[in-house]
């Protein structure tokens, strides 16, 4: 065992593979940090390049991209309030508020070190207990997934803090939007008005880009408001950040485990993990620090960031042990491995342990590169804020158009992005939070699908959600999440006025 691990280590550390990993990391930072370009797109672009590589070089390149893309997504979320990837959308909440206060560097540093921490926790889980976790994840049937997503949906209440009603309206609109497209169970079109483009529904990515990026662009260019925060002062240097890896330890551990766990469940979806982690971190925060948390502090950045890199290792668990991708990115990764003649699945650990160890080492090397590269280039990222907005914002809009066009090679999704951009702009003006809408669009399809499939297998008996223990736990937490703010606001009113 040890000799295989050492052989694999030397293979991964060969110059070619290190170079591939570094290349993947740099490219991943670019696609992750650029609003509009996604990790999936980056992988698709690199895929043909990997055909002629050997398996370890190929996986070094792609894992580097996967890990750094997750971290890169937070950079634009923090600096510009435009999440570069879906899994960075929760980071924008606290991160951008910090940047607005001139704390861009702390926010970025926290994001990068938390990402590294999350990646390490998920790697440890992957190395030590992957087969066990994969078997346990099989216990998550449709019923349990349905309850988990239900719990995710109740988070809408937490993100509608300022006005519960507006938050709920925003969420409800999101849920209604998800009914457009092919019915997930009977396979017939709904509300598509005969348009074949609407058949696969309104996809999440153009909505996210539209909701976050377009209002920023409109506000900056048309309304002339100052959307790009300032950054002045000296940089703290790489080492002061690295010392922060273990700061806010308990929040990071919990969040990283949430990310790993959700990532390991096939079909649960990444964005649910980051919002869940953000919400759990808020609940873990002592009452007297809640104000700081809501105003955006390091914990609010650390939690979703530890979670989204937790997804990295988590999603690899079902991919490697069962041959089942946990998310769209691992689906592409799976394809890349199959091209190499490897069959991820129950036999991979038995037939090809050398490769399995190479994946572990490549993951570690990739995560270290991400940490070093992002911290060392901190100056560049902060300098982005010094670019005049009339140059920066048009560049971002070009990438948004390219990114949405590339989703399906059609301008349809670009149109969707613009429409939601306008919606987001109006929502912002009239004080409706956009996060509930986004959450609803991410979770709505999964919610409908899992609930309906549960009812098909239970022959229409809804009590399965209460008789399955895991599901019952989620439902109880969900009800608590839903009712606690209402109860609290009732008490406040009585006491306050």
């Amino acid at each position: 065992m040890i000799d295989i691990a050492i052989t694999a280590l030397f293979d991964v550390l060969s110059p070619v593979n290190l170079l591939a990993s570094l290349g993947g990391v740099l490219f991943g930072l670019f696609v992750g940090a650029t609003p509009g370009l996604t990790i999936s797109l980056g992988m698709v672009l690199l895929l043909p390049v990997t055909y002629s590589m050997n398996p370890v070089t190929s996986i070094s390149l792609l894992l580097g991209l996967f890990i750094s893309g997750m971290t890169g997504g937070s950079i634009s979320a923090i600096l510009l309030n435009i999440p570069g990837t879906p899994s960075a959308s929760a980071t924008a909440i606290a991160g951008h508020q910090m940047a607005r206060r001139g704390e861009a560097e702390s926010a970025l540093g926290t994001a990068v070190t938390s990402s590294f921490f999350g990646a390490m926790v998920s790697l440890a889980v992957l190395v030590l207990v992957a087969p066990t976790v994969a078997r346990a994840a099989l216990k998550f049937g449709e019923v349990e997934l349905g309850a988990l997503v239900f719990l995710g949906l109740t988070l809408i209440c937490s993100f509608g803090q300022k006005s519960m009603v507006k938050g709920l309206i925003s969420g409800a609109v999101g849920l209604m939007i998800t009914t457009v497209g092919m019915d997930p169970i009977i396979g017939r079109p709904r509300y598509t008005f005969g348009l074949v483009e609407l058949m696969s529904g309104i996809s999440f990515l153009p909505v996210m880009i539209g909701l976050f990026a377009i209002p920023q662009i409109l506000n900056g260019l048309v309304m002339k408001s100052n959307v790009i925060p300032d950054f002045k002062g000296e940089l703290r240097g790489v080492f002061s950040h690295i010392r922060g890896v273990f700061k806010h330890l308990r929040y990071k551990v919990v969040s990283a485990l949430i990310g790993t766990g959700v990532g390991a469940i096939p079909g649960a979806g990444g964005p649910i993990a980051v919002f869940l982690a953000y919400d759990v971190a808020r609940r873990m925060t002592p009452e007297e620090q809640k104000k700081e948390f809501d105003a955006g502090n390091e914990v609010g950045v650390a939690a979703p960031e530890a979670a989204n890199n937790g997804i990295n290792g988590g999603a690899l668990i079902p991919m490697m042990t069962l041959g089942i991708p946990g998310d769209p990115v691992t689906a592409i990764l799976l394809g890349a491995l199959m091209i190499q003649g490897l069959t991820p699945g129950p036999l991979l650990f038995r037939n090809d342990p050398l490769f399995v160890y190479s994946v572990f080492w490549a993951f570690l090397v990739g995560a270290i590169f991400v940490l070093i590269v992002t911290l060392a280039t901190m100056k560049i990222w902060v300098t982005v804020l010094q670019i005049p907005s009339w140059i920066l914002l048009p560049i971002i809009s070009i990438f948004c158009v390219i990114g949405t066009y590339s989703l399906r090679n059609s301008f349809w999704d670009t149109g969707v992005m613009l429409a939601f951009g306008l919606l987001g702009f109006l929502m912002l003006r009239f004080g409706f939070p956009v996060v509930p809408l986004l959450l609803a669009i991410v979770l709505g399809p999964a919610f409908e699908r899992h609930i309906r499939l549960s009812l098909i297998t239970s022959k229409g008996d809804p009590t399965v959600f209460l008789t399955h223990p895991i599901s019952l736990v989620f439902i109880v937490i969900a009800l608590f999440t839903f009712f606690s703010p209402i109860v609290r606001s009732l008490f406040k009113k009585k006491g306050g006025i």
Partner: protein
Amino acid sequence: MRKRALFVLFVATLVVSIGATAMAEGQAESTYPEKSAEFMIPFGAGGSADTLGRAIVSAAEPFFGESFVPVNRPGGGGAVMYQAMYNEPSDGYTIGWSSTSILTATNIGNVPFAYDAFDHVARVGYTSLPIAVRADAPWDTVEEFVAAAKADPGGLAIGNAGTGSATHLTAVVFATKSGIDVIHVPNGAERRIPALLGGETQAVCVPLPEIGPFVESGDAKILAFPTVNREPAYPDVPTMREAGYDVVIELFRSISVPKGTDPEILDYLEEVFRQAVQEEEFLDVSARYGFVIDYMGREDFADYLAAQDVLIAEAMDAGGLR
């Protein structure tokens, strides 16, 4: 000033992008091919349809003489791509990587035309869609499974990739021909094997390459193949026909072009792909994906498509999908 500069920039971007699209349209030509052709793939990047599609065009390029540009048009179980191809000119520069989905998407009525709204060049091969159960299940043969299902009507569940998909229709035809009443669960492609292993469903209809590793690892066993011939890798497992149920549905992959394409171009393409399927690199990729190369030229493929179309239509009626 800045505003104007921005506007000019915006217009310039638009003009360039529209110009690029217009240039790709091209004009009438004398010798075919004289430029690259678009190769439309009806599913997303990274999946088996995508990988096999990219592999066949890369093997076909030397014979074609120009390059192919693979473009993924996923969505609607193939409907998005077929609709897009339907709107393209029949000049031989739009080629589709069609599959069984061309019969399912048209028969379920998601697009306003039938499979014969295209010219079909060739069938490249197929992937078989066996019915599998957990290894610890009490049934070792498809007959035993049928007997159990008859004893417990509506009690057993068979997972599939989605309503109206080839795996669903295969399970429906199997249930109809064997006279059993089962629940069809559209678990989806990424959930159907976890659902089987986790015990939510008792059986699954699934492409062989996905379930193969689980059979080898001792987690699952295959009851029967709905194919004409036995699967080379599983010589002991019978076909559905051998077991007494007349079920033959294959997940085929093929080459199609917009209707009205010049017969000379069709001949040319048929020859290009006939040669491509014999290329070493394509054979390698096919073997990895459990894709059985079984080439059919235009005429054979037309007969095959007509027969499969009837079968799919019957299955949809039986499943109450039309």
